[in-house]
């Protein structure tokens, strides 16, 4: 039993988190509080949603770097439309944002399937095209907290549980966890219980074999990229509600952090291998580091440094274990 646990990448991630928690708590006791935990959950919810999408893309043997542009497009347009039409309804917001997400995702999927472009190049291109289109055709007006429609503001401040701290201030678990959990469950269900999910793993594992087995590669790819678009749409609404100040130039540039979290979680960049638990742990590590290095007295400038170290350690562990396995069987595949 212990043997099997030690073989799993997720075990090492758990250990890293626990070790970190112990170190930080010994320096600053306020790390181990519900308040901090709720805070981390709220900050990490958006990244968690996007990470599920990146996981699916990587599993299929591809990659998508355009999701931030899709997310901000969805979110920003939803805000502007609601401001313009006065339909102050959260579900309308999600509907608008997710529809935009699916459409943009489909564009990615079509480019990748029909032009057979490498996924990195294609989505790098669409990242810029979507972003450019947003700023050119929709505008660059920022929307600040006063102008923000109330559905977003309420969503951003709503809590599931509310507690009172020792100092008497109120804090609570943000409702952001609801879309996060919903996305996780949906992704888990698709990957584990549907042929669609198996097809994605097959495609990432061995594309030619998947073709020969009769899988419809085009349909699979269209699904993968639309799904990411959909998730980006969800995250877009979460993001604008969280930040309460939205401008089309934000969020872009954070793609690599999300991808880093997924990779830390043990997902192979070559495809076919990766787990939801691992991805969530990866997101947890990155979010915790970003949020709590201040507890150690380190400024935000140290965030990237530590995330970088964790990436290297995490990939290093997997890579090392792989090499030992190969060396034993004299297979020189590095």
């Amino acid at each position, binding site marked *: 039993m212990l043997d099997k646990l030690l073989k799993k990448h997720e075990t090492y991630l758990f250990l890293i988190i626990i070790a970190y928690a112990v170190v930080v708590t010994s320096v600053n006791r306020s790390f181990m509080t519900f308040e901090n935990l709720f805070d981390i959950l709220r900050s990490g919810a958006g990244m968690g949603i996007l990470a599920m999408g990146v996981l699916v893309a990587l599993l299929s043997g591809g990659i998508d770097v355009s999701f931030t542009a899709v997310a901000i497009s969805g979110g920003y347009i939803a805000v502007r439309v609601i401001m313009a039409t006065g339909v102050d309804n959260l579900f309308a917001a999600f509907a608008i944002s997710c529809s935009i997400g699916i459409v943009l995702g489909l564009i990615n999927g079509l480019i990748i399937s029909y032009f057979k472009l490498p996924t990195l190049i294609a989505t790098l291109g669409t990242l810029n095209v979507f972003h450019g289109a947003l700023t050119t055709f929709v505008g660059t007006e920022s929307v600040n907290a006063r102008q923000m429609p109330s559905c977003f503001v309420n969503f951003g401040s709503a809590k599931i549980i509310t507690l009172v701290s020792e100092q008497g201030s109120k804090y609570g678990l943000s409702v952001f966890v609801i879309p996060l959990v919903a996305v996780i469950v949906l992704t888990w269900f698709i990957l584990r*219980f*549907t*042929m*669609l*999910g*198996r*097809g994605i*793993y*097959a495609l*990432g*594992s*061995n594309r*030619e*074999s*998947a*073709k*020969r*087995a*009769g*899988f419809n590669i085009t349909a699979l790819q269209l699904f993968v990229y639309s799904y990411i678009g959909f998730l980006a749409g969800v995250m877009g609404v979460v993001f604008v509600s969280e930040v309460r100040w939205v401008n089309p130039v934000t969020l872009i540039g954070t793609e690599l952090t999300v991808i880093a979290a997924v990779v830390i979680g043990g997902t192979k960049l070559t495809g*076919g*291998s990766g787990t939801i638990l691992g991805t969530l742990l990866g997101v947890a590590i990155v979010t915790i580091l970003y949020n709590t290095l201040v507890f150690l007295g380190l400024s935000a400038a140290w965030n990237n440094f530590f995330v970088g170290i964790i990436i290297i350690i995490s990939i290093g562990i997997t890579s090392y274990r792989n090499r030992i396995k190969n060396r034993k069987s*004299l297979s*020189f*595949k590095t």
Partner: protein
Amino acid sequence: MNDDFLIVDNVSKSYVGVHALKNVDLKISSGSIHCLVGENGSGKSTLIKAIAGVIPIDSGEIIINGKTYTHLHAIDSIREGIQVIYQDLSLFPNLTVAENISLIQMVEERKKFISWNEMEQIARRELDRIGIRLKVDDLVEDLSMANRQIVAIVRALTQDARLIVMDEPTTALTKGEIDSLFSLISDLKNNGISTLFVSHKLSEVLAISEKVAVLRDGMMVGDFETSDLDTNRLVFHMTGKEIVHSIFQYQGKKSGEPPLLELKDLTKKPNYSDINLSLFRGEILGITGLLGSGRTELALSLFGLNRPESGQIWIDGRFQTMRRPGDAIRAGISYLPEDRHSQGLFLQQSIGNNLIVTILSRILNKLRVISEKKKLESMNRYVRELRIKTPTLDTPAESLSGGNQQRVLFGKWLATDPKIFILDGPTVGIDIASKSEIHQLIKKLAQGGMGIIVISDEINEVFHNCNRILVMKNGRIAAEVDPQHTTEQELTDLVEKKNGVAS
């Protein structure tokens, strides 16, 4: 005949400028065992892919079960009962055995949701049907080659297959496993399932098949009854030429001459143990044995890639430690690997670059920069001497035929002027004409004084090209044989018998 399951009628297929298939006809009847042979480049893979519906044909028809198809799709072919097991097995390495076995069935049944229980049950049931024990939860990438082959075959059988096409299925199997495979194919026949077996190993082709279809340069030379064929006639149909075999004559060692290579009690568990051998100048020493006997592991140790635990390596009377390939190369050893694609060639680099990569330090000019003149001289020299067929020096290595790729590898190592050349499976997957030319090359090198070790599965090859043959079993040297005083059959028996009892 009306119980022909598959009829390929006048099928042609071209790729840009190249006719892969020209007016090919083939008939496969139900419950028959058919073999497809042909040199590399003859069109075998293209024909298989056409039958499987993976590539479209330019003209002609494919008639399966009486139904005519001009545009066959993979899913149609699968539904009609044609299952292809490609040489790379087309498995999903990151998925489990159970998933690999059941997935195709689920795709074919257009299922939307999967039940893990069901997949496991299907897998176990199919494995039991064939009588194989495998853990269905294991990831395929962790399985041995033979077990992967079994998974591929079991997968093919879950589909109510009527025709199973196997592309070079025996390359990585032991003799025992090959026998099991053949009895499986006979069982299939008794159940009305046809097998189309593509192979380079002519002895196997003649042993298992009822009919042999021969392709040459994209055209079907003929579909022969196996009983009308023997090896020479088959080779003649495949190449259009007669190939002559001659035994290698060793000059004999000069008196008092120390061995070029001497191994004393070399051991590396669990690969091999207590290896003692000597190799003299001008000898071609053959090492043969079943899969897993330790031959390649021993060769890797001589090249610094598998450091031995104990024992000694002496080269030309001097003790050597082999920690890395650099040590071996400096000591005058060259090694031609089993897998030339992933371990020998730089596939995307030009042929020229592949040829000089081992002697970069020797083609520098006074400024320690690579001299164009010396570089071209070396490249051209080896292309000429080895008769490498290529349009230019800049052609990427991956576009050459197997035989020519092997020549490039020979060139690359000969450029280092080795004293000892270890060849691991030097003619695997190479067409017959090139094979015999490479054998000539090896003999010429030996006559020039090089000590050569040939590691091979093919009894025929070691028999006609070595003056001494060592048989390895379970990591030890079990016997030494002189081809001038034995027959091929005796050697085959020696290799295959288990613990003194002929299998």
